[in-house]
């Protein structure tokens, strides 16, 4: 089953031929001359992709299974706390994520932190259980800052454990 990352890797290889993605990115990180501004593709990874399930600045962190946005732990916040000067939106979407270390499924609430422009770091998009906009409670495509006092401006997203999922 081709995962998203594999597909993108494939594309990258086709394009960059012998250049590994990492080295291309490193070169990029260095600087660019005369090229277009190159934005970030939302990173999506399943647990299968490995990565760093215990690093809360990583998209692979186990809590982030339905994350969509910038990881607050990269922005001055933590996995569960908004960065200074932002406001946590009270309404949210929720995912059920498995913690590999104890093998249990947890209900995780994703709260957007609002009131400043995009943090711009650690964009992470994992759509496990995401549903279209006509199912708002399951839709991570909404800007949930709409429910905060700050209004729409979206900065980053935190994840909070709400409980253990019952089967």
């Amino acid at each position, binding site marked *: *089953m*081709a*995962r*998203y990352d594999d*597909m*993108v890797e494939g*594309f990258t290889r*086709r*394009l960059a031929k012998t250049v590994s993605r990492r080295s291309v990115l490193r070169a990029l990180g260095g600087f660019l001359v005369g*090229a*277009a*501004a*190159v*934005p*970030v*593709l*939302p990173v*999506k990874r*399943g647990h299968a992709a490995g990565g760093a399930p215990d690093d809360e600045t990583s998209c692979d962190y186990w809590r982030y299974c339905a994350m969509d946005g910038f990881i607050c732990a990269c922005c001055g916040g933590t996995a569960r706390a908004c960065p200074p000067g932002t406001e946590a939106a009270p*309404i949210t979407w929720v995912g059920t994520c498995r913690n590999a270390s104890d093998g249990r499924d947890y209900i995780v609430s994703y709260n957007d932190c609002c*009131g*400043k*422009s*995009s943090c*711009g770091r650690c*964009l992470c*998009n994992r*759509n*496990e*259980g*995401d*549903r*279209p*906009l*006509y*199912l*708002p409670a399951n*839709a991570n*495509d*909404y*800007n949930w*800052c*709409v*429910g905060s006092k*700050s*209004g*729409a*401006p*979206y900065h980053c997203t935190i994840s909070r454990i709400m409980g253990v999922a019952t089967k």
Partner: protein
Amino acid sequence: MSSRSVPSPTELPIAVAGLLAALAGAVPIGSAGAQLKPEPLAVTTLPARGSPHWVWVNDIVFHHMADGKAFLLDGDSGTMLGMLSTGFGYTGLQVSPDGSVIASPETYFSRGTRGTRTDVVTLYDPRTLAPTGEIPIPPKRAGHIPMRANSGITDDGRFLLIYNFTPAQSVSVVDLKSRTFVGEIDIPGCALVYPTGPRRFFSICGDGTAFAVRLDDTGKPASRGRTARLFDPVKDPVTEKAVRDGATWLFVSFSGDVVPVETAGDVTKAGARWSLTTPAERQQNWKPGGIQHLAIHPKRRRLYSLMHQGGPDTHKDPGSEIWVHDLAAGGRRVQRIPLTKPLTSISVTSDAKPLLFGIFIGAPELQVFDAVSGSLLRTVSEVGFTPSTLVTR
């Protein structure tokens, strides 16, 4: 000194010229030779009627959402024709059926990303791309990853419909003729707008139904009601990214079933379901996906779909191929267009020699294909930051 500064003689107020001369200090102001008349200041305009091969690229600019933009490009030459600045969390513009008005639902904050929120519909002149008017609307415009059904215009060009999410769900109705906000229509449990006639639209609902609304001539609801169930939102939800085929909207489910929503009669109902994929292809995990993953050429009866191989929950993944199905032949697949780069949005022009446009939200460029042969004609670089959706006519 190889460079010196002189003010523009035709435009500069005398006082400022004097100031600049004073500012220049020890640097002498050069005197221009008299044999050439200075070129005048000029601003370009567009032809009254654009080419059918023009395309709008809406950009939400995800990392800098206060700075939404819409780029107008010519698919034949690959040149940029102009740009609009369109505010916070931009979800895209609408062009009236006759092409005479560009209507753009926009959101602004008094301090960029804080302070008082103001929502307006800005009207732009399609020839000058300058704002010609602004219609205040309630500050409720839905913010989400851009998709075309965020707003829509009725078939006669009269009413602009805008989806609201606060998270209460409603539709703002704007009269483009009188340039006024008419009112709000509640669509509880439903989302987005799909116009179906001069005075009709529907929204799509969480229980698998649609909410159909008929407007009177003032834009107020004349009738409204929920349809029968059109699809199963639990077992196999359809994406919100439907395309319109005359009186029918074609939705596609996560698994790849086409769900036609027919609005020709008085009753909005589901048409005969068919699949983009064969059982073998389904076995190989071929699925539709993207941000604007469907495009249509109604006259040629062709449906274009962004397809990729992926597991569950990959309904927003970019396509690695575009599949073309013949609607006249019951949805028989007639073409597979392999992509060298992933795409998340596609759109097809409606003329006799159609172009197919493609963008990927992760790369600032526009790809232009021959929509008939599927061959890549050109790639236009430096088009926005996170190009989101496409508008063709």
